[in-house]
């Protein structure tokens, strides 16, 4: 910056205006990108030192936890527990992926857990009553629910959030026409209720202007009340008898199918990243070196391949039945992950989300409808809470009246933050929630395997890990500003 200020005069500017190839090459020297793996690695180390660690802290944390828990329990590294861990992480990661969107715009949604409870309750009630929510809820509550959903269709449409408006409207159709007997449509209803809830939160935060912390804290309580109203104080409403819902967490992909999906996913990943590297290099743009792309794709293929291999082994503890295969929930998480990653990184909408999170004023001046974008983040978060609710119901085998009340939200926020998403907005990836969810799920999983440990420690350790992650986020955010 300081070296090339020769103070050349304005009048003799002609020479400066000529853009010689040499000068251009020097000007954007780094734009060719790293030439090889070694350069790329050096660049990555520099990034980590600069506080941009990405997923590295989470992966290191996971390794530390694995080493500790492998020593405290014989069971932790068993095939059965590995499958357990992924099943436990599935709900957290889906909720966390939704949370990433809200965190990206610098907000928070504390109500996502109990909102997921309301969604799951709608699903369970519809399934158990032949799709007739009116009979199970009572006419008053049912009409109130429908009116709220209709109102949120209008709110979404007024904000030009067409997709959410359509989803909620279709949800109303499912509820009114008793279509919830079909399990797939009942699940859709759950997501639609979540979308409706998100529209309401988004409206209150982005249009009315109430801080998201207050809105969602209030609704965190309110949804608990709604859930009680829906379910009553009695036993959980079972979903165990409905195979499609039940199979999400308790069913497994056939061995061959899992390998085929794995192979196709790896080929697609390798294909897109390699194609991007080659075509960008050809156009003279900054591109990753091809060997880096190959090494990274290879590493991912090996890690996921080992996971699939282990899960495809028989992990039954008896000789009478075989338990093997990748849980379907893992496939759902993977599909959701790929979808939202595409939206965030390849579409204009994703770019707008980052811009709104980074500098709201700049986004407004660039002509972005900031209120609409902010509203949409809450819609996605709560819609994902509806999906997480389905997975949670599948895991628990039913919907109890305290669904989502305890640690769900904190785990989801924790997953995103541990993975590297900033609480201050503008920085984060969908990937963060998935990696973070595995770390978060590992803590109660590993601690509960230690004999004679009190659950006091589970809460204590999980809380401290969250605090450390949030602290690391705050510190990494501070360092670039202070030098």
């Amino acid at each position, binding site marked *: *910056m*300081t070296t*090339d*200020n020769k*103070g*050349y005069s*304005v009048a003799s*500017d002609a020479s*400066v*205006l000529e*853009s010689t190839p040499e*000068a*251009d090459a*020097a*000007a*954007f*020297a*780094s*734009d060719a990108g790293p030439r090889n793996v070694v350069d790329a690695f050096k660049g990555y180390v520099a990034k980590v030192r600069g506080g941009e660690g990405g997923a590295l802290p989470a992966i290191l944390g996971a390794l530390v936890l694995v080493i500790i828990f492998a020593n405290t329990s014989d069971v932790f590294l068993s095939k059965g527990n590995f499958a357990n861990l992924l099943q436990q992480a599935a709900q957290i990661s889906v909720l966390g992926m939704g949370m990433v969107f809200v965190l990206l715009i610098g907000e928070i949604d504390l109500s996502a857990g109990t909102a997921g409870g309301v969604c799951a309750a709608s699903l369970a009630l519809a399934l158990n009553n032949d799709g007739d929510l009116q009979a199970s809820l009572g006419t008053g509550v049912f009409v109130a629910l429908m009116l709220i959903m209709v109102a949120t269709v209008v709110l979404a449409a007024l904000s030009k959030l067409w997709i959410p408006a359509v989803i909620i409207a279709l949800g109303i159709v499912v509820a009114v026409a008793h279509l919830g007997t079909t399990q797939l449509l009942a699940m859709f209803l759950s997501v639609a209720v979540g979308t409706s809830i998100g529209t309401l939160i988004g409206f209150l935060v982005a249009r009315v202007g109430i801080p998201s912390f207050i809105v969602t804290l209030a609704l965190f309580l309110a949804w608990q009340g709604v859930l009680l109203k829906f379910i009553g104080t009695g036993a959980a409403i079972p979903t165990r008898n409905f195979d499609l819902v039940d199979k999400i967490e308790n069913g497994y992909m056939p061995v061959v199918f899992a390998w085929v999906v794995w192979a196709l996913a790896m080929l697609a990943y390798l294909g897109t990243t390699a194609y991007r590297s080659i*075509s*960008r290099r050809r*156009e*003279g*743009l*900054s591109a990753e070196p091809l060997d880096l792309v190959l090494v990274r794709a290879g590493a991912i293929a090996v890690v996921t391949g080992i996971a699939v291999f282990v899960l495809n082994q028989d992990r039954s503890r008896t000789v009478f039945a075989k338990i093997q295969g990748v849980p379907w929930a893992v496939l759902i998480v993977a599909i959701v992950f790929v979808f939202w990653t595409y939206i965030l990184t*390849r*579409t*204009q909408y994703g*770019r*707008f989300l*980052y*811009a709104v*999170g*980074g*500098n709201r*004023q*700049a*986004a407004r*001046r*660039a*002509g*972005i409808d900031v209120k609409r974008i902010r509203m949409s983040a809450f819609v996605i978060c709560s819609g994902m809470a509806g999906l997480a609710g389905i997975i949670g119901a599948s895991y628990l085998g039913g919907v109890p009246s305290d669904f989502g009340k305890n640690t769900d939200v904190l785990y989801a926020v924790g997953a995103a933050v541990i993975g590297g998403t900033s609480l201050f907005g*503008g*920085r984060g990836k969908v990937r963060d929630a998935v990696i973070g969810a595995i770390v978060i799920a590992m803590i109660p999983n590993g601690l509960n395997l230690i004999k004679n440990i009190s659950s006091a420690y589970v809460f204590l350790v999980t809380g401290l890990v969250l605090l450390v992650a949030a602290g690391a986020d705050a510190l990494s955010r501070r360092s*670039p500003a202070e030098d």
Partner: protein
Amino acid sequence: MADTPILELRKVNKSFGPVQVLHDIDLSVYPGQVTALVGDNGAGKSTLIKCIAGIHHVDSGEFFFGGNQVTLGSPRDAAALGIEIVYQDLALADNLDIVQNMFLGRESKNRLRQLDEGAMEAQARTVLSSLSVRTVKSVRQPVSSLSGGQRQTVAIAKAVLWNSKVVILDEPTAALGVAQTRQVLDLVRRLADRGLGVVLISHNMNDVIEVSDRIDALYLGRIAAEVKAADASVSQVVELITTGRSGDLGLSRATADANL
């Protein structure tokens, strides 16, 4: 120098409630020239540029763009005409890189509605090098890693990217060191040399006199005088800013005093 102004304001008035902020403002911006807008705090500079940007609606007065009368009802209208404003507090998002910032809100997309990163990156680089910006290592580095002068440069380049005809710079050098101010002023001059109409708002009289062609001094919501930069001295401009008159120039004593 061109004779027809690219942007012309005639008898523009603007009030906020009982307070009249702009009185009968006449202002002409010529292509290929830097028109400096100077004035003390509260003289109405910001209000005036917000009127040009379409953020504020004027109470009365006419706007002409390239000789045709236009209405500036919204920032979109102004942008559509090719009026770009580089704000004092830099409308850049720190977490995005240079390319992302320059194209923010107007991203190129391919047939699949995906972002066309390649096209945007190439175009950003072309614009930056056409403005002889040589200090940026990579157009893919985040804006948070740039110095103040580089950020200002990116903000200006962003304004140029869209084939704009008039660029309004609000205090572009206010927060910069000596060397960086030098770079930005050179860039301002280069914009005019490309044939753009440049409006420069600044508090630094030396900068103003050096880089601009014409100086319009605002005094309590009125144009006190328009002087040629070549003929003006710093003390003369300062006098116009602080008292509204200087020798034969400026508002009549009655008008100037009436506002006090």
